[in-house]
């Protein structure tokens, strides 16, 4: 039986007017009927183009087939073979540029809502009790540095292979960017903690408040009997524009703004974390982090402008986030670039900008934005959030002199993700610069495979 419906089964969502007053999840998830209705749109193509476009190679048509049959347990295990964080990926993956971009249904209509189905299966599984048995940990000790998506993916795969895995986290909460960065309304924190709990059941140990490179260094880990180390320390220092006024009170990096809100819970009335709530906020940038910061600011009660130097077509953020943001009242100022943050008594009073136009394509293939002469204007605002990406964290390199990094400071790895130090591997944003959750996960999995091959020799 095939469902010939041309469009995706709509996702139930919280009404925009209500949701900008809370931090609860926006997309509510498919019901069982909706999931099966959507699953029946899948044509089960022989060559599975969707799977080839998934960074971790989830066997998509088979897990969807199990949904059709109503066997959600099997559907989960089919996904879990290659993806240990399906509840996370179902919510935050940019499916439109990955699996769903290759879906045959997408040629004449909309592709199958693979991400929503993945989320449905993961949520169904989380709501049912399971006796996860820890595999026998008979193999060597492995240290994973960082508990973000890359570290968790690596730890999960190694634990399943029988290694004794310890994950070291610098912050006081596990989950890395999934916890400090991505807001609750897009990824509820309980989901991350549940995934961490599942890893604990697999025998993975977690140590918070340990900064590798400071509290412990790589050599000490080796001397402590860890046979291999995976460095998944994430992206690092937030980038700024180096324009006048960036040091004023009321200029945040997106990392700081989101960390205050998410990790330090500034959105809860009981929190002691200080945060400036602007009347009118400018978020500079157009990626997922910019959307997260902008939509958080809406929920903190601000009018929010997204200031982006290219046009709407070039916005790198996930489509659904842009659409949700528009519904919630984000104002987009496209082809606009800040040149100065204006001051009053040490605080922000406005953002001086210039208008841009798109010229010839640059190396990235996107049309290069160029300044239009005499186009200066001022956006009145009292808060500016810079969401311009990050440059690698210098901390680990400074304290690990023989760890090779490139001219930008990213850790250099070979095709197996091994660094310049024997049996020390690295992946995720620490090697690639800012990227996506799923790419970081795929590298974690790749490192696990490399470590297993090396240690099995």
């Amino acid at each position, binding site marked *: 039986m095939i469902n010939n419906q041309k469009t995706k089964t709509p996702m139930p969502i919280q009404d925009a007017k209500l949701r900008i007053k809370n931090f609860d999840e926006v997309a509510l998830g498919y019901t069982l009927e909706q999931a099966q209705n959507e699953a029946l749109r899948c044509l089960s193509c022989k060559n599975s183009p969707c799977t080839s476009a998934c960074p971790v190679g989830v066997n998509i048509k088979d897990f969807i087939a199990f949904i059709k049959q109503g066997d959600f347990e099997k559907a989960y295990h089919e996904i879990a073979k290659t993806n240990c964080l399906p509840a996370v990926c179902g919510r935050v993956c940019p499916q439109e540029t990955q699996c769903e971009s290759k879906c045959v249904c997408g040629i004449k209509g909309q592709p199958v809502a693979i991400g929503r189905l993945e989320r449905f299966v993961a949520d169904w599984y989380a709501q049912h009790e399971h006796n996860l048995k820890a595999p026998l940990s008979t193999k060597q000790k492995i240290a994973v540095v960082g508990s973000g998506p890359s570290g968790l993916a690596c730890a999960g795969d190694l634990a399943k292979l029988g290694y004794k895995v310890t994950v070291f986290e610098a912050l006081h909460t596990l989950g890395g960017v999934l916890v400090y960065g991505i807001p609750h309304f897009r990824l509820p924190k309980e989901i991350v903690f549940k995934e961490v709990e599942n890893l604990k059941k697999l025998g993975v140990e977690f140590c918070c408040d340990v*900064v590798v490179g400071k*509290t412990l260094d790589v050599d000490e880990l080796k001397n402590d009997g860890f046979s291999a180390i995976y460095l998944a320390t994430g992206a690092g220092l937030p980038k700024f524009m180096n324009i006048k006024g960036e040091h004023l009170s009321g200029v945040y990096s997106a990392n700081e703004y989101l960390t205050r809100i998410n990790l330090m819970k500034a959105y809860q009335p009981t929190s002691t974390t200080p945060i400036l709530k602007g009347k009118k906020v400018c978020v500079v940038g157009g990626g997922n982090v910019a959307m997260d910061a902008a939509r958080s600011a809406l929920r903190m009660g601000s009018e929010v402008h997204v200031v982006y130097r290219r046009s709407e077509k070039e916005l790198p953020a996930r489509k659904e986030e842009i659409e949700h943001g528009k519904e919630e009242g984000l104002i987009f100022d496209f082809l606009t670039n800040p040149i100065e943050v204006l001051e009053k008594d040490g605080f922000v009073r406005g953002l001086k900008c210039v208008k841009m136009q798109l010229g010839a394509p640059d190396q990235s293939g996107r049309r290069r934005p160029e300044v239009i002469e005499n186009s200066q204007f001022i956006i009145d605002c009292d808060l500016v959030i810079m969401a311009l990406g990050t440059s690698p964290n210098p901390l680990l390199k400074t304290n690990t002199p023989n760890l090779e990094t490139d001219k930008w400071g990213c850790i250099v790895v070979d095709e197996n993700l091994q660094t310049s130090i024997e049996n020390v591997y690295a992946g995720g944003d620490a090697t690639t610069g800012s990227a996506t959750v799923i790419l970081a996960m795929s590298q974690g999995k790749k490192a696990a495979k490399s470590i297993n091959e090396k240690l099995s020799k």
Partner: protein
Amino acid sequence: MKLNTIVEKQQLNDTVCLLGIFNPAVATKAKAGQFVILQHENSERIPLTIADCNKEKGIVYVVFQQVGVSTAIINQAKLGDVIHHFVGPLGNHTNTNDAKYACVIAGGVGCAIALPVAKALSQNGTKVDAILGFRSQNLVFFEEKFQSVASTQIVTNDGSLGQKGLVTDVLVENLNKKQYDLVFVVGPLPMMKAVGDITKNCNIKTIASMNPIMIDGTGMCGGCRLTVDGKTAFACVDGPDFDAHKVDFDQLIARNKTYQQFERHAYEKHCNLLNKQ
């Protein structure tokens, strides 16, 4: 013993408190000038520079001044309590190499930060003078500890102990007769700025230990940024020590006022809550 247990607690003056916390890993690693981050109950993450370590017993000493809600929460923790989160040692240690004659200048709670630096200098064979500034005699602490490693002068604003005036008054007098080749300064921003202005004219290398607003302390949030020599630097990974002649103090003085209003409200709310209890 459980990690992060409070094994010593001592009130140094009305608002300044010393905590000894059991954490052998940090105690073993810590060097002068480095800091830790504490987080307890629903407090913020509070960066505190390490005041001393007992490496044999695995104890890290920190000194803090109760100024807001978060430090009030820490202050309520009792001997034997376990601090929820304690991470370090963070930041770079103070570079004490090569100095022959150093002057360590500290104001108020900054004396806690200056003590390990004075010790490290002294152990390194450097001759050390210390100038410690307080508002009044009843606030003075660590005087004896400094005396064991440095020729120590106390300055109080009201003249109730030692010389009356400011640390800069004593520094200017000392500069007339002593040949310092290093000055280390820690305390309120205007004081550090004033010291930097004086030593810049005499061309004496001067290190200022900065303590800006910070969250993660590992180079992620960017909250602790400051301008040094015209460039953006991050206190957590590039500091906390910087060349006092190159730091833009005025900018930091303005930046540190960011949450003044917020904190006043939050603190009043917290105190009202305590009074009700």
